[in-house]
């Protein structure tokens, strides 16, 4: 039984073996709430809830009211999600906590769609002028290339090391534990059992590598001149850096999983609290960096930021037509040569689903999710 006093209740929950899992659910809820509270301030000045508007619209009473409504919905959903997660753990049905987590995601998307619908009557025709700098885009240089090699070097080094200590690995070892720390999933000392995770790590890093390359080479430079153009180039480099940082993170995580077999007490669940705290601190830093830049560098210094296109009455936007955005989240435009375009829901880039190359990338992601299942089946048969 759990005590009724809130402080004692928190202490009692923290002492439970499932406390790290509870924490792993509450921290993303907090992160999502903060990120989406800030979302309206992170977009380009002439994009408001995925709709192209004149920059002055942001300051209007209607726009402020839309933002207020959106933020209220985000926080209500987040509080409900926290309550559901706690209730699920108190009732001893931790899987129900997922309803809270996914409910928050669904609620935030619904709030976004509602805000977008309210903004649509204020949509403005974008500028009929387009501009481009007549200089080749910088390739990135040797520093960028070395940074990109790093995760693969880490994975290669660990693969060689594991091969060298192959016979020190137990023939069967646990790889999954239940909420109370009892092992409930095992792997074997086989190629798939050991290198399966490693291969998934290589696949994830390869995908992120392609995406990072795409950000540097396959994205549109929306503004060609002035501080906006510089901010945009800076934003692209930051996005590249964030992806490479995540690539290092995944390389280290998938690299480390086979080493759990070498633990002196292999049946004992590893202490995941430091890992979880480290992961959330890392993600928090990345999110803070993205919030600092804003979409397309919109939050960076704006000194002399006006483009050469002197057409203040008509917004430049992100040079994608509003009508090609499905629900403000999915861009489908076969006429646009861009494979990657700036997101209108969140920060960063998304795929142009009207391009066949985008579907190839999606097929690659699906393959990445199927590989672990196939590997698990193969490992089970090899036991």
């Amino acid at each position, binding site marked *: 039984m759990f005590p009724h006093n809130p402080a004692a209740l928190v202490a009692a929950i923290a002492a439970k073996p499932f406390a790290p899992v509870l924490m792993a659910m509450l921290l993303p809820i907090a992160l999502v709430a903060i990120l989406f509270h800030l979302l309206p301030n992170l977009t380009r000045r002439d994009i408001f809830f995925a709709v192209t508007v004149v920059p002055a619209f942001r300051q209007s009473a209607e726009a402020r009211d839309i933002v207020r409504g959106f933020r209220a919905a985000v926080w209500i959903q987040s509080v409900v999600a926290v309550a559901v997660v706690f209730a699920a753990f108190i009732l001893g049905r931790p899987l129900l906590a997922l309803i809270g987590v996914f409910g928050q995601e669904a609620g935030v998307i619904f709030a976004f769609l509602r805000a977008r619908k309210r903004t649509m009557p204020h949509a403005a025709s974008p500028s*009929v002028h*387009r*501009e481009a*700098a*007549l*200089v*080749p885009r910088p390739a990135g240089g040797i520093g960028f290339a070395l940074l990109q090699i790093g995760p693969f070097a880490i994975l290669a080094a660990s693969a060689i090391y594991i091969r060298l200590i192959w016979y020190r690995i137990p023939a069967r070892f646990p790889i999954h534990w239940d909420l109370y720390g009892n092992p409930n999933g095992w792997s074997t000392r086989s190629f798939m059992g050991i290198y399966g995770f490693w291969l998934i790590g290589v696949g994830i890093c390869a995908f992120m590598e392609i995406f990072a390359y795409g950000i540097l080479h396959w994205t*549109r430079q929306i503004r*060609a001149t002035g501080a906006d153009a510089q901010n945009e180039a800076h934003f692209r480099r930051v996005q590249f850096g964030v992806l490479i940082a995540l690539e290092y993170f995944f390389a280290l995580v998938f690299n480390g999983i086979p080493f759990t077999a070498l633990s002196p007490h292999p049946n004992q669940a590893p202490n995941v609290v430091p890992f979880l705290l480290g992961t959330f601190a890392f993600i928090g830093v990345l999110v803070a960096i993205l919030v600092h830049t804003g979409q397309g560098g919109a939050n960076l210094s704006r000194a002399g930021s006006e483009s050469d296109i002197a057409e203040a009455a008509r917004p430049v936007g992100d040079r994608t037509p509003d009508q090609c955005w499905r629900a403000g989240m999915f861009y489908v435009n076969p*006429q646009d040569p861009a494979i990657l375009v700036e997101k209108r829901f969140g920060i960063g880039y998304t795929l142009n689903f009207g391009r066949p190359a985008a579907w190839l990338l999606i097929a690659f992601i699906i393959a990445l999710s199927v590989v672990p299942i196939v590997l698990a089946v193969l490992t089970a048969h090899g036991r």
Partner: protein
Amino acid sequence: MKKTPIVRLDTSSQAPAYEQIAAEIRALLVAGELLPGAPLPTVRQLALDLNVHHNTVAQAYRILAGEGWLDLRRGRGARVVSRSKPARANPRAGRTFRSQLKRLLAKAVAEGVAPKLIARQLTLHAQYVRTWGLRKGD
């Protein structure tokens, strides 16, 4: 700080996009804002930035290469080359210029542009054109 050469496209214009792009780049080449040896963005990069099909940019580059402004080599991209002034002016080019200018002036007047403004712009451009000649060593 050196000014970045910019190409602009008006999507509401009747002129085809490849002609607009070629005209914009030609103006930069004639004004000396793009000097011999300068590399241009790849066809795909410029098409991406201007949100047009890559054939549109390729066509514009081919026009300029045909006029002797650009060197197009597969795998090396487009590069500005040193172009000497034609030994003899094409007489048809002179006639076309005069008739186009006349039509343009008539349109501007018909749309209410002040003759004073037109005259001032023509004087400014005449001065500007003379500097192009000087740059080319005329």
